[in-house]
């Protein structure tokens, strides 16, 4: 083949290097691979493309994607990404680095993770954060495993029916082969039924309880007294929340949670067709050594400088192998830089204002949609920030609604079924877009 732009070796160098190795050809280095195992011929893949051809190929594919005005949520929210964050994320000293196992030359990575951990602890009001999980769903599943391990012998985990079904599905996948019984706490009027929870706790053997606020339908659940109830049953309280909402709504630490988990995509991460997002996990001091994932800690170096290192690694797979708290190794890494920079740029007030703007617009849209008489809030008395569920009036379906909106270039939400839809509004939606949504419903 001709010289490839990513490969520095010239043919002459290859020959010299082979000679230094006592080999006469590159194939010589594979003499131990039996011919019967060898690939016959070459991969059935295209020939190498030049950079301009790669871009053209991608552009052709991308032309088959349509950007819609986004009123969908369900775990992925269309908040604005400040340009400054994109700029620092592209610093290749960060982007092309490995896990910071050599702290002497990894202070950049270690410091931004430490900052992220600090800010997540502030946001959740918990004692300690790890250096990230994959997404909110796997973070919740790992929290379940952590609760079961902390309880030693208990095998029941309760999960509210109001948790996002995608998250519940991942929890179930992780539970299945651990013989953990995941039982669903029924919902009543859109929120977790507390009386049912009490009954289920009463039956004993519960290691943990998983609840979400805002829940799948965007409802902020009132979890007052839950921690006492659950701790009395010697179980752990796991609360899943979208990170941005915590700047305004009551965070896990203020509810008395033992483990705080969720997705931090709402901190301005691009939708990117589902990823990369960022799972977060925080916990109490008491449970710190049971937490999965990497943790960065502060110390000093020989020069007396404040220095950051990966710490408490005795929990991790590369040290403990099958006795580790988790198998997690690579996580969402640089997405914590995004989250940290986003929180720093907006600060407490900015994050609350993002919630406010989104909430004001969402509530306006909900009111106006109700006024059309064609749909109504499924749970009109329940508090929400920027996401809400609506039920179609007789004669109208979510399918027809979404189709009509799509024709206007609008992604109208996520249909639960033929009659119910979940709608999310962010600060990015303009009055024109919101009015267009309303007009489309009026014209249905």
């Amino acid at each position, binding site marked *: 083949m001709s010289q490839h732009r990513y*490969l520095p070796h010239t043919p002459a*160098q290859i020959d010299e290097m082979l000679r230094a*190795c006592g080999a006469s050809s590159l*194939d010589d280095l*594979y003499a131990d691979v039996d011919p019967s195992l060898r690939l016959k011929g*070459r*991969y*059935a*893949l295209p*020939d*190498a*493309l030049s950079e301009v051809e790669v871009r053209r*190929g991608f552009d052709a594919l991308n032309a088959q*994607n349509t950007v*819609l005005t*986004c009123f*969908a949520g369900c*775990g992925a929210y269309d908040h604005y990404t400040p340009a*400054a964050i994109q700029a620092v994320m592209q610093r*290749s000293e960060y982007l*092309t*680095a*490995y*896990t910071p196992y*050599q*702290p*002497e*030359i*990894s*202070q*950049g990575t270690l410091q931004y993770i430490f900052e992220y951990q*600090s800010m997540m602890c502030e946001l959740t009001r918990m004692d300690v*954060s790890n250096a*990230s999980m994959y997404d909110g769903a796997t973070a919740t599943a790992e929290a379940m495993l952590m609760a079961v391990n902390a309880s030693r012998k208990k095998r029941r985990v309760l999960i509210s029916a109001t948790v996002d079904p995608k*998250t519940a599905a*991942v929890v179930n*996948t992780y539970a299945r082969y651990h013989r953990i019984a995941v039982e669903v706490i029924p919902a009543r009027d859109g929120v977790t039924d507390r009386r049912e929870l009490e009954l289920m706790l009463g039956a004993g053997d519960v290691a943990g309880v998983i609840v979400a606020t805002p829940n799948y339908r965007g409802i902020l659940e009132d979890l007052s007294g839950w921690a006492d109830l659950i701790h009395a049953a010697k179980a752990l309280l796991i609360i899943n929340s979208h990170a941005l909402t915590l*700047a305004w709504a009551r*965070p896990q630490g203020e509810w008395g949670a033992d483990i705080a988990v969720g997705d931090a995509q709402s901190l301005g991460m691009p939708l990117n*067709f589902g*990823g990369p997002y960022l799972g977060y996990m925080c916990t109490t001091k008491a449970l*710190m050594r049971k937490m999965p994932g990497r*943790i960065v*800690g502060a110390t000093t170096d020989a020069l007396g400088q404040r220095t950051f290192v990966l710490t408490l690694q005795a929990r991790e*797979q*590369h040290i*403990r192998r099958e006795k580790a708290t988790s198998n997690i190794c690579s*996580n*969402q890494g*640089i*997405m914590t830089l995004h989250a940290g920079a986003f929180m*720093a740029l907006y*600060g407490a*007030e*900015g*994050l609350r204002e993002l919630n*406010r*703007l989104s909430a*004001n617009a969402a509530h306006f849209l909900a009111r106006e949609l109700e006024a059309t008489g064609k749909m109504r809030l499924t749970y009109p008395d329940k*508090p929400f920030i920027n996401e809400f569920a609506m039920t179609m009036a007789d004669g109208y379906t979510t399918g027809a609604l979404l189709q009509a909106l799509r024709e206007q270039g609008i992604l109208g939400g996520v249909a639960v079924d033929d009659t119910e839809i979940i709608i999310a509004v962010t600060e990015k939606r303009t009055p024109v877009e919101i009015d267009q949504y309303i007009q489309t419903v009026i014209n249905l």
Partner: protein
Amino acid sequence: MNRKLYDKLIFDLSCPGRRGYDMPRRLYDDIELPDAVLRQQAPALPEVDEPTLVRHYTNQSTNNFGVDTGFYPLGSCTMKYNPKINESLGADPVIAALHPAQPASTVQGALKLYRMLENMLSEIGGMAEFTLNPFAGAHGELTGLMVIHAYHDSRGDSARTRVIVPDSAHGTNPASAMIAGYEVIEVKSLADGTVDVDDLRSKLDETVAAVMMTNPNTTGMFEKNIPAIADAVHAAGALLYYDGANLNPMLGVARPGDMGFDVMHINLHKTFSTPHGGGGPGAGPVGVRKGLEEFLPSPRIRRRGDGSLYVEQTSDTALGRVSSWFGNYTVFIKAFAYILAMGADGLAMAGKLATLNANYVMNALKDVYLLPVPGPCKHEFVFDGLADKSTGVTTLNVAKRLLDLGFHAPTIYFPLLFHESLMIEPTESESRETLDVFIAAMRQIAREAAETPDLVKSAPHDTPAVHPDDTEAALHPKVKFSDL
């Protein structure tokens, strides 16, 4: 690197009243939320302006070492160059704006890329089907093992409670087996680093669900007995799992499917050039041989008769979900762009040059470093410390001295087969000139170990941080700003 001039946390730059954002005006009536669900105390987040923030993270980045900064010979991590076009495509504004719940008709391009990459990986792995959903290598291992679990369960073969891993395996293997609900059994390695087939045979029975192998293994040796191993594993009714962390040297040479592997994962952030990001996001696609497709996790991308693609959210026989959506999508774009840029022949050349680079470095250093497993190696090899054991200079000292000389350290004290493991993987991205400078540095350290051992033992001397106190960090954990 300017740590001496700049040593701040973003919190240290905070000043009350500063802000780094602006916001659209409030156009709608303010809403109220009940007190019970409202936050009581505001989070103590930094208050910074935009220029301060940008300068902070830019300054901090200079205290970091990436592939773009220099040579990163980190064994089993495949720190190859991350092409810039990949980043450019991965940051595409259209992709950035695609919601994962969009109707399939509006994201045909995104779904096609997903399918095409699945198919390319199936061709490279010699597998029937791939899923791209798993987020990382360890997540792929976990998913693959759960696929194996689901397969055995589907046959009513539920007595298989154990997974065998070689003692040379990556730490994630036993940990993933544990998280997948299995008991872990270790199989020994022979002196040449390959699996002891007799020991493996003696441990295979009807309680074994799977055997996990890395090929080439973590000593960089090709497991040439793999056909016999595969036969023995299959005869016992177990499945053979391929840890794809070391796939790079096999590109274009031999495919895991053809070696007899049933299930595998691939680290896109290793073999397929997507950046490691200081720990992620990566991607750990999982492939299966024919007959196991139905056990792959949801969602799957499927093709209709008319050629259009759709998202299948549920399936009765599927494993269930391992992710909220489709995985780390932009990582797929980057890997896809890499495969297109390399082409079939370029990939094969990359694998072979990775092997050439490793052998070149190994041969140039084996007189001064102890080579426990003679080559030829594949993409990586392991030294058991310095050849001269009289100096008292350890592998840790060598690794730290390399930092002074401008290199990232190799992987150290892994694999666990040797006391002083120093595991070097140069990758095909490194030029002969770079390797020669590295070789000279390694020889210099060997010389220093004999002549001025204290210089090596007290390294590093010239890095942004010097000898951080790990014990203090673990004894009195300070894990957030308010702990300081």
